[in-house]
């Protein structure tokens, strides 16, 4: 059994990732206040450059708010291909230093270098080498947090931002945690912060000393985890191998609120194709179809139904979503639509016996092949009338491998 306190974990967090990539790609944007946005009419700031952050521009602000905070802000429409390309390149760089790499999101990664750091001159030196390699390859900055576990590595990378590097050794953990507000911890959001405040717990030191019985009574089994987090203990390891997916889904905020049946159908088809394609790509089939609808007033609900058989065929997913839609009496315009496939199994790749179905499967394979090669929706169905691409910005949860659900903002 390896002592978890003796591990050396790196959290590598890109600084203002989308903005940095854009500034690198376009020299005229360098040193300027920029905000990366989607192409839709109702997009928000996804990432602001550090120059813009000085003026108070934050992720999630709408354009009007951002322009008010920083009138000279330059808005840049996101280029998803550029970010995914960079992310894949980053993964390649990490793999030069250790095989234990978990790409946590498009701009964050955890590396377990316990077994390899001595080859590169120790924890800090390996961190510096990675920073250097990234700078050389992509011209962008990152912050490296080094700690005995991923919770603390993430914490110190947040503290050391931007363009920083900091190592917290086991003996320094207690001192660091003592006066640290609980909300700084990864995984503790506003709700839990509030519930802890009711118990008089504001700092990690207080959380670590709080009686187990109290935390258990308020948070159930999660109470134990919280207490451990307060002490800076985290038992989650770097997951180098992606976990099996539990659902595959896509959702999108529409460029404007819609009510027209034809329009809803077109978006559902697009989402179904994205879901079906992702399932096929990663070798999954699912049996449950979930339809998510958000009305203009943000009321959100979902409906689900079980299909008769497992599928990853775009048309089956679409039919399922339409059947669910038929069962809903729409009382308002729709702001967001989502489709997902769950109750997943690994696609056994059973070939169909009946000629028409073999053809249908072959068509899907051929289309996937073309789209893999030339880009999504390059080849699509005639029934899906090519409409203006309303590209969203890629979700931060995007990963170069695995099938994590993605929300197109």
């Amino acid at each position, binding site marked *: 059994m390896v002592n978890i306190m003796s591990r050396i974990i790196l959290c590598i967090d890109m600084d203002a990732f989308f903005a940095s990539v854009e500034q690198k790609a376009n020299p005229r944007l360098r040193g300027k206040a920029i905000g990366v946005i989607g192409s839709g009419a109702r997009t928000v700031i996804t990432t602001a450059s550090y120059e813009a952050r000085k003026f108070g521009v934050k992720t999630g602000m709408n354009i009007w708010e951002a322009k008010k905070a920083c009138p000279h802000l330059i808005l840049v429409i996101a280029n998803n291909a550029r970010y995914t390309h960079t992310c894949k390149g980053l993964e390649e760089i990490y793999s030069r230093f250790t095989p234990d790499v978990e790409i946590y999101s498009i701009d964050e990664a955890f590396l377990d270098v316990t077994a390899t750091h001595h080859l590169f001159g120790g924890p800090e030196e390996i961190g510096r080498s990675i920073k250097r390699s990234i700078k050389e390859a992509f011209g962008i900055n990152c912050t490296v947090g080094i700690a005995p576990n991923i919770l603390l590595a993430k914490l110190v990378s947040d503290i050391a931002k931007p363009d920083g590097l900091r190592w917290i050794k086991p003996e320094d953990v207690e001192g660091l945690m003592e006066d640290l507000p609980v909300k700084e911890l990864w995984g503790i959001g506003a709700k839990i912060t509030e519930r802890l405040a009711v118990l008089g717990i504001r700092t990690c030191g207080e959380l670590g000393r709080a009686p187990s019985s109290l935390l258990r009574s308020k948070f159930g089994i999660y109470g134990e985890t919280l207490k451990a987090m307060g002490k800076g203990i985290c038992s989650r390891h770097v997951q180098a191998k992606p976990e099996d997916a539990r659902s595959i889904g896509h959702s999108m905020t529409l460029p404007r609120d819609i009510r027209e049946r034809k329009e809803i159908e077109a978006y559902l088809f697009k989402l179904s194709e994205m879901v079906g394609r992702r399932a096929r790509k990663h070798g999954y089939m699912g049996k449950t179809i979930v339809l998510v609808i958000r009305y203009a007033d943000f009321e959100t609900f979902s409906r689900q139904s079980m299909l008769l*058989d497992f599928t990853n065929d775009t048309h089956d997913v679409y039919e399922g979503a339409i059947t669910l839609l038929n069962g809903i009496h729409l009382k308002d315009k729709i702001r967001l639509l989502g489709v997902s496939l769950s109750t997943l199994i690994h696609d056994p*790749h059973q070939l169909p016996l009946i000629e028409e179905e073999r053809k249908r499967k072959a068509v899907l394979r051929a289309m996937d092949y073309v789209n893999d090669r030339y880009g999504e929706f390059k080849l699509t169905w005639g029934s899906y009338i090519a409409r203006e691409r309303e590209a969203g910005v890629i979700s931060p949860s995007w990963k170069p491998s695995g099938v994590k659900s993605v929300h197109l903002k």
Partner: protein
Amino acid sequence: MKLSISKDEIQEKLSNIQNIVEKRNTMPILSHFLLEAGKKGTHIVATDLQIAIKEPLAAKVQSEGKLCIPARKLFEIVREAEGDITIESEDETWIKVSFGKSRFRLACLPSGEFPAWPGVESAEEIRFGIDALSEMIEKTMYAAGETDTRYTLNGLLFHIKPGDGHITVVGTDGHRLALLQQGMEAKVTDEKKVIVPRKAAAELRRFFGGSESVSAIIGKNHLLFKIGDVEFLVRLIEGSYPNYEQVVPPSNEKKVVVSREDFLRTLRRVSIMSRERSNAVRVDIAGSSLAVSSSNPDIGEARDEIGVEYIGEDISAGFNARYLMDALGAMTSEKVIFALQDPLSPTLLTEEGKEEYKCVVMPMRI
């Protein structure tokens, strides 16, 4: 209405209809059976609107009448009864059931509410031996779909071609197919293709004991089987059945002769380690050996090998072991012929020396 009847007789007749009568309460009348007591004879009629059964009941009728009786409740009462049972109607909605000193009152529905027995119009009649029909159902039913959206697959196709005196029965779920050809006595002028629901085929088997032949009367929408005094009416599945003749590979060149038992045992063993649900195994045929292997990244691997008679190029293909095992299990010959073409084309399993029974299994992509 008043009649008396032996416990064994009514228990057997009621047990025959328990799978037909409605268990959920969607249409209350369908959870009832119709009892028709007449001087000339007494009958039980039950239906789920897909299947209707009319079977005789040997009863002593004191006064005639008909009534709809809750099938499940009366069955439960009868099972607990001893000796002869007397059933007497009070009016259109109540009956009294009595035996020994036991008395039951059971709420019923008027006979007028029971669905009418559909007539089978302008029909042609075919006769089968019970054994032949039984074999046709047993050997094809396993391959039929159960809850397929392509609803015609949830039935067995009975294909009768004029002139050649044969009937072909087919079952398929879209991944594998089983087909059996049998001789029959019939005067059929037109080609006929009827699809019998899987459930009906399964229920029909209950009535095979005690009779030697069955006559089937084929109507436009219904098929009526007459087995002795029992009438078994099936509403046929409408729609077109896939072209099964196109699916059966006519000339797979790589023919492997293998012991049926050995192949079955090997598949059973190796599939322990294959992924749940898919039952995926890999079959490698090289020289005179057939190897079956499986691997599941989460559990482990397995491999087994048996000797076969084979002359030809090496070939490998993936299969759902369940499909091969079902087919082998339905066969009876000592040796079977496993005929392959290439890893992505349909494979054919037949009994050595027999052409009538064919099982087609589509491979998995490996």
